[in-house]
């Protein structure tokens, strides 16, 4: 089928809807200053995460967790040896900061991905299934949504004892899907009203075919958009947990760095220690959020334009 399609006219109007939409969207996105800043910031953090593998190779003293500068046993200010100074037992803050980027990406993207998958599937099923299934799923989603996720996870941490980073990821994902499900459900509901779904049914398509061939491609852009928002919230929840002392003790995250400054009482004495992790958490969430907002602005008018002919002949 594809081969035949490709045999058509070779003009650029043969580009698929997806491709066309992507190129159009990309140019709109790139025009948007907010989106561009977000993108650059993300590239910066990506480089940081990649660079985090380098320092321990140079000298074991640069290991973010176990590396200790043998000459330093107090929180030292930035120096040539330690670009951002050290913490109170002589660990290199710059190395910790790089590793934190890795953890943030890991937690943010994996938790967001899981919650997007759950949210999209449940949202599609609820919206398409309707009736009792819809009511039950959405009531359930509402219930999770009115729970303050950070505090619930805290409470649950009692059950797990010590939280490992993967349990944190799972818990965040489990408590952050409802917003996605709600959006995807309402999208599915409006798609279900669109005649092309009726047309597919009239043509004899099965429910599975309709869900995955007809509805999924149409809700996917929205799901991706929500993924960027979920990434920010996952990073924030993980950082807050670590800040409160419930993080994975085997991983250095920015939240945990902040906890160390705070708990060791260095917040008034060691600004080189207090500032970087906070700036990083704030900036990485800002970056994802900005990307998301720019994407939203790209997606929104296009969704609106498909409603019908514009009177303003453009």
């Amino acid at each position, binding site marked *: 089928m594809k081969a035949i399609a490709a045999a058509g006219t070779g003009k650029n109007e043969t580009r698929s809807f997806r491709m066309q939409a992507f190129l159009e969207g990309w140019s709109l996105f790139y025009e948007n200053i907010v989106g561009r800043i977000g993108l650059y910031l993300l590239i910066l953090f990506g480089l940081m995460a990649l660079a985090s593998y380098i320092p321990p190779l140079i000298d074991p003293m640069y290991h973010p967790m176990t590396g200790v500068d043998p000459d330093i046993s107090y929180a030292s200010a930035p120096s040539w040896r330690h670009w951002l100074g050290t913490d109170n037992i002589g660990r290199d803050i710059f190395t910790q900061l790089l590793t934190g980027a890795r953890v943030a990406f890991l937690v943010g993207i994996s938790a967001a991905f899981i919650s997007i998958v759950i949210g999209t599937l449940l949202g599609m099923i609820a919206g398409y299934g309707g009736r009792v299934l819809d009511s039950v799923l959405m*009531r359930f989603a509402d*219930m999770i*949504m009115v729970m*303050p996720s950070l505090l619930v996870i805290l409470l649950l941490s009692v059950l797990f*004892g010590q939280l490992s980073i993967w349990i944190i990821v799972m818990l965040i994902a489990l408590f952050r899907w409802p917003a996605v499900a709600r959006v995807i459900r309402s999208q599915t509901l409006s798609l279900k009203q669109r005649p092309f779904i009726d047309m597919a049914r009239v043509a004899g398509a099965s429910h599975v075919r309709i869900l995955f061939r007809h509805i999924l491609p149409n809700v996917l852009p929205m799901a991706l958009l929500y993924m960027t928002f979920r990434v920010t919230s996952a990073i*924030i929840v993980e950082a807050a947990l670590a800040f409160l002392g419930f993080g994975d003790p085997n991983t250095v995250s920015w939240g945990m760095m902040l906890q160390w400054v705070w708990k060791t009482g260095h917040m*008034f004495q060691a600004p080189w220690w207090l500032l970087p992790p*906070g700036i990083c958490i*704030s900036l990485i969430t800002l970056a994802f959020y900005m990307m998301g907002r720019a994407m939203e602005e790209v997606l929104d008018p296009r969704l609106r334009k498909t409603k019908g002919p514009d009177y303003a002949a453009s």
Partner: protein
Amino acid sequence: MNLKKLLLRRIIEIFVVFYIIMTILFLLFHLAPGDPVSMMVDLTLTPEDVALLVAQLGLDQPLWLQYLYYIKNFFTGNFGTSFHYGRPVIEIIGQRLPPTLLLFTTATVLAAVAGIWWGKLIAWYKGKPVDTGVTIFALVCNTLFLPWIALLFIWFFAFRIGWFPLSGMMTPEIWVNPAAGFLAKAGDVLHHMLLPLMTLFVVNTGAYLLIMRSSMLETLREDYILTARAKGLTERQVRNRHAAPNASLPVVTSVGLSLAFSVNGGALTETVFSWPGIGRELIFAVSNADYPLAMASFLFIALVVLVANLIVDILYAYLDPRISYE
């Protein structure tokens, strides 16, 4: 009128949701591997103490009976005794709830009102440098990591320039002094509250501003806005009478939806500022394995969120005639 019916329905819903939350919590804590006592209690207790505790908590009873007791205890206000304080949990909750309500309500209302107000104004400058600037600033505020900005505020406003106390809610000297009047006491609380309030305000307002802005832009495309302009209204009249009331509806909804999220922030703020509220108490109880206190604190926080949601719903119905006059 139908508003009453709506209200009744929402109240029943809240009861159902709350009941389900209670039940899930119960099941989690009682069906999880290992019994809660061994999870919560530190190793210094003697076996006799543990046995006593087990009996005290009713953990030797069959599960269904424990469940019934659990429900009954909630409605009779009997949450047991805090391991840490050695006092009835309900007493502690009673002390912790008012400061939370004070801080949280003030912060939410202020942030929502300011967000709606500024969002309305900024929507008028769409595409201008002011708009881009304010949008980015709001985004930055909204994504600031709350505990960190709280620490910075303490460091700068309390530690460096000393305008505000470092932490807490009251200065003991004033409250012990019998001569201090109501005004002095209220002023003291306000003095302590300003910094946490500012933290929450800075972080929350941005989100509401951005929602209001995009909601305004959406509303301005409506035909009735065109009609209002065609009628000869000034831009200001169009904005205040025709655009803003409609545009603020989605913001009200999102205030409701973000309440749970703001509660997270509230708990963090309370912790950093040592504000004696229920969020800080929950975090404290979890850290100290104070099982009865943690459970009860959580249930009350959930209740606060549910009731706040109800209030938002009522407000919405009041603002949108399509709901109250169906």
